[in-house]
């Protein structure tokens, strides 16, 4: 296997878009290619993460449509579907192809346009992320899964629910603090107070509106090349030094959902490949689709001991300048969650952080970063560890 790097990154502003999924992807893709210094003729394959495009816009074969829109008809173009982790597995596969030597340069990313759906259709589509025979019929919503995670967390570790809720509110507050200063974020420029979080409506007990990520439109893309090519193109190539992926079935089959075995396996694969440990990570974009999800992920990735992640959130250990900066972009919570694009947008943020291009939300001196993305009933999970190549 040879060394692999990322040379160009781009994302659209997340939020509500009048552009189609193909148009958004094309915009991000061209910006990433232009930033990389490469030309369209250099792209050998296109990997597009997309979860629900068939239903959102009635568009199948979305990857070829994306490729054709940027003049890459004839190029192999493949859709990657892993619900909210779609973008991550698209980039991970680009890494594998380039590392293997089969391709030298692959464009990868994701796109999603959820806000075009009516609310009933959106809730129905999101309900498809659990087992369709044995779970969806209970009316288990997405917030519902994480609500059950929160109650189990409080019960297992003997934490009074109000204390856990305070930690969850703190996660939301931090996300909005960061998202407020990220021009690409859905909640850019919107200040959120602890009182607003506490006063928000109940969605699925104990999850309230401000514990939930929004429904979003957006796209993001990155150019993946061999490290040799990257070093000729830029002084700041970002290396992909570790990656992992894991999968699971129904929520119930995983039993204790305060520990996600697929995440822990996938993260271990990434750490082992990189020869790194959790304490080596300076900045992490992890899957905070709901506030409790950030707490559980911060433990699953090894930043904190099981049952201690909520304390870390309360203590500010996950803030910029804390023990490990988590979600300086505002995360899924405040940056937005166009599911197919989310993993690629996480990579965008980490690349920008390692290059030192994040302005007021910059994690000073960040040299190694990580992404964690989780789709459906924790069914599809992927990790990437990125490192400065200079």
């Amino acid at each position, binding site marked *: 296997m040879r060394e692999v790097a990322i040379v160009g990154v781009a994302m659209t502003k997340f939020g509500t878009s009048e552009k189609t999924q193909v148009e958004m992807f094309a915009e991000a893709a061209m910006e990433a290619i232009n930033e990389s210094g490469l030309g369209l003729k250099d792209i050998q394959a296109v990997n597009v993460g997309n979860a629900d495009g068939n239903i959102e816009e009635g568009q199948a074969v979305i990857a070829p449509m994306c490729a054709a829109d940027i003049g890459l008809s004839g190029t192999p173009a493949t859709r990657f579907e892993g619900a909210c982790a779609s973008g991550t597995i698209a980039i991970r596969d680009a890494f594998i192809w380039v590392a293997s030597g089969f391709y030298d340069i692959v464009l990868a990313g994701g796109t999603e346009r959820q806000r075009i759906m009516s609310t009933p259709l959106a809730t129905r589509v999101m309900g498809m992320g659990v087992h369709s025979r044995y779970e969806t019929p209970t009316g288990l919503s997405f917030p519902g899964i994480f609500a059950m995670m929160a109650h189990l967390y409080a019960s297992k570790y003997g934490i009074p629910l109000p204390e856990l809720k305070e930690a969850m509110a703190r996660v939301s507050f931090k996300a909005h603090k960061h998202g407020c200063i990220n021009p690409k974020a859905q909640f850019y420029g919107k200040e959120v107070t602890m009182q607003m979080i506490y006063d928000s409506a109940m969605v699925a007990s104990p999850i309230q509106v401000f514990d939930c990520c929004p429904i979003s439109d957006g796209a993001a893309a990155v150019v993946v090349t061999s490290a040799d090519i990257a070093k000729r193109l830029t002084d700041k190539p970002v290396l992909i030094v570790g990656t992992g992926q894991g999968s699971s*079935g*129904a929520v119930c089959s995983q039993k204790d959902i305060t520990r996600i075995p697929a995440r822990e396996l996938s993260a271990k694969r990434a750490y082992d490949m990189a020869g790194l440990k959790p304490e080596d990570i300076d900045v992490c974009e992890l899957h905070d689709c709901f506030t409790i999800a950030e707490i559980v992920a911060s433990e699953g990735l090894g930043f904190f001991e099981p049952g201690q992640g909520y304390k870390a959130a309360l203590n500010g250990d996950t803030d910029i300048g804390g023990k490990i900066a988590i979600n300086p972009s505002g995360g899924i919570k405040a940056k937005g969650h166009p599911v197919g694009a989310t993993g690629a947008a996480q990579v965008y943020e980490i690349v920008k952080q390692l290059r030192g291009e994040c302005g007021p939300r910059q994690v000073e001196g960040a040299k190694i970063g990580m992404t964690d993305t989780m789709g459906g009933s924790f069914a599809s999970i992927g990790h990437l560890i990125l490192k400065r190549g200079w």
Partner: protein
Amino acid sequence: MEYILTSKKFTEALKEGKFLGLKCHQCSGYTAPPQKVCSQCGSEDMEIVELSRQGKVRTFTVIHVAAEGYQAPYIVALIELEEGPWVTANIINMDPEAATMDIIGRQGKIDYQDIITDIFSGGERIALTFSLTDST
């Protein structure tokens, strides 16, 4: 080897009053809901057995923003069966507004309810239910 306990067979059995699972001949572990291989050891060497329906609440939520076609509020829970597996079920014999973390650990019994079909449901479907049987 053929898929021995399909979702169709599992559903039809529930309607006939039987809550089915799988018992492994290799490790003696139980698997529910059904799948191709043993959830404990991965063996295909399993037989269909009737489960006791007894279990306890491990976690739950009261859904206030309903899924399409559902009427909020309602309770969804993860139930640990006496035989070991966990299943997802609706707790039906208590007022959702009255559900607090105190219901975690409470005992009850599995049954099922019919659920309306829609264009995505892939035909008929049911949801497991759970009725609390102990008193507080």
